[in-house]
C-alpha cells in the first residue's frame, strides 16, 4: 500500500465535507452525499461551473473532456470519487 492509498479515506472525507459545505453555502439547503443535485434542480447554470472551478482550485486538478460528464457530478459522492482519481493521476504524473 502506498502512502496515497493509506491517506485516501481521510482525504475522501475531507473532500466530501468541503463539497457539502460549498453546496450548502451556495444553495442554502442541506444536501445529502447521495442526493442527485442535477436531477433535483439544485444546480443552476452558474452553480455547475462554480463547482468545477471550486474543485479545480481547491485540489489542484483539471477537470476536462470526458471527466466533465454529468455522471461524475450527479452527487457529492461521485464528485468526491472523481476528485480523488484526478488528484491521484496528477500526483503520479508529478512524481513520474
Amino acid at each position: 500500500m502506498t502512502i496515497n492509498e493509506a491517506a485516501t479515506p481521510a482525504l475522501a472525507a475531507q473532500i466530501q465535507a468541503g463539497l457539502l459545505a460549498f453546496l450548502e453555502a451556495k444553495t442554502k439547503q442541506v444536501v445529502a452525499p447521495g442526493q442527485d443535485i442535477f436531477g433535483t434542480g439544485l444546480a443552476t447554470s452558474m452553480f455547475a461551473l462554480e463547482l468545477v472551478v471550486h474543485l479545480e482550485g481547491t485540489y489542484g486538478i483539471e477537470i476536462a473532456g470526458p471527466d466533465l460528464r454529468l455522471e461524475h457530478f450527479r452527487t457529492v459522492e461521485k464528485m468526491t470519487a472523481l476528485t480523488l482519481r484526478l488528484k491521484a493521476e496528477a500526483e503520479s504524473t508529478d512524481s513520474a
Partner: protein
Amino acid sequence: MPDQLADERALITGLVDGNAGRWDLDGLIPEDLLRDLGARGLLCAQVKPSYGGLGLDSATNGELTAHTGSLCSSLRSVQTSQGMAAWAISRLGDADQRRTHLRALTSGQLAAVAFSEQDAGSDLSAMSTRIQRSGDSVVVDGAKKWITAARYADLLVVFGQYEDSAAAVVVPRSAPGVTVDVIADPLGCRAAGHANVRLDSVRLPAASLLGGGGHPLSLLVTTALTYGRMSVAWGCVGILRACLRAAVRHASSRKQFGTPLTGHQLVARHLADLFVAEQGATRACEHASRCWDSKSPEVATAAVLAKYVSSRNAATAAASAVQVLASAAAQDGHVVARAYRDAKLMEIIEGSTEICQLVLAEHAVTTTL
C-alpha cells in the same frame, strides 16, 4: 498595459486602423487578414503554446481584446467567437481532440460557436438541435440562429441535446448537410459574419463529439459563455476607449462661442461620464480576469457582472460620444457611429442585460443574507 504585447498591438493597429470603417460599410472583413491573425494565434490568444497558441492569461488577453475592440468591434467579435470555440474545445475535448482542433485554430482555420435557435435564445435549455449516436457516427439535426462569425468559419462548435443530457460537436463547414445563410445588414458589428446555420442529417465520425458527449447542458453553456462574456466585456472596454478618445479630441479642437468645447460645462460633463464609464468597465473586467486567472469559483458571476457593466456603459457612453461629436460622427463607418450601433448589440448577446440582471439578483439574494 503589458509591454509583452506591444508588437502584437502594433500589428493589429497596422492592419485595422483606417480600414474598419470600410469593412463596416461593406459588411465584410478580408478573409486572408482573419486567417493571418489566426495563424499568429491572435484570435484565441489564451490557447497554450503546446497547441501553437500564445498562452496568455485572461488579464493580458483582455487588454488585447480591448485593443482590438477599440479599432473594430466586428474583428473583436470574430476574436470572441474563435476564443470561445477554442475554450470549449480545450475544456470539453479529450486529448486527441484538443491537439487536432486547437492546432487548427492557431494555424489559420476559423471557428464559430452555435448555441442560439429560433425558440432558444435566453432560454438555451429549450434547444431543439439533436445530436444522435448511430454506430461509429453521430448525426446532427437542427437550425442555429445569428451565429457570429459563421460566415468565415471552417469549423462550427454546435451545442445540442444528446441522449439524456447534452453535447458539443465539432462540425466542419464543408460537411454535407451544413447550410450557412449570411444575415444581411445587421444593426451592429456589421462585418462580424453573422449567419443562420442549418444542419440537415449531418453525419460525422463519433470522434467529433467533444469528450464523448453526455455533459450537463447548464455546464456546457456556462463554460463556453463565461469565456464569451469576458471577451465581450473587454471588447466593450475597447469601445469605451475609442469613444473617450474621439470625444476628447473633438472637444479639445473645436471651438463654439469662441471657446473650445472642453470649456463648455455641459460638454465637460459628457467627457467626465465617458471617462468614468471607461474606468468602471475596466475595473470590472480586471476583477473578472483576476478571478479567472486565480481559479476562483466567483469567475462565473464576475464575468456576468463585467459583461453587464461594460456593455451598458458602452451603450450609454457611445450615445454621449455621438452627442459630443454631433455631425462629425453622424455617418456610418465613423468610429463613434460604429460604437453607437455595435454597443447596442453588446447589450443583447452572451446573456442579455435582463438575463444578467436575473443572474446578479439571484447572486445578491444567496450571498447577502
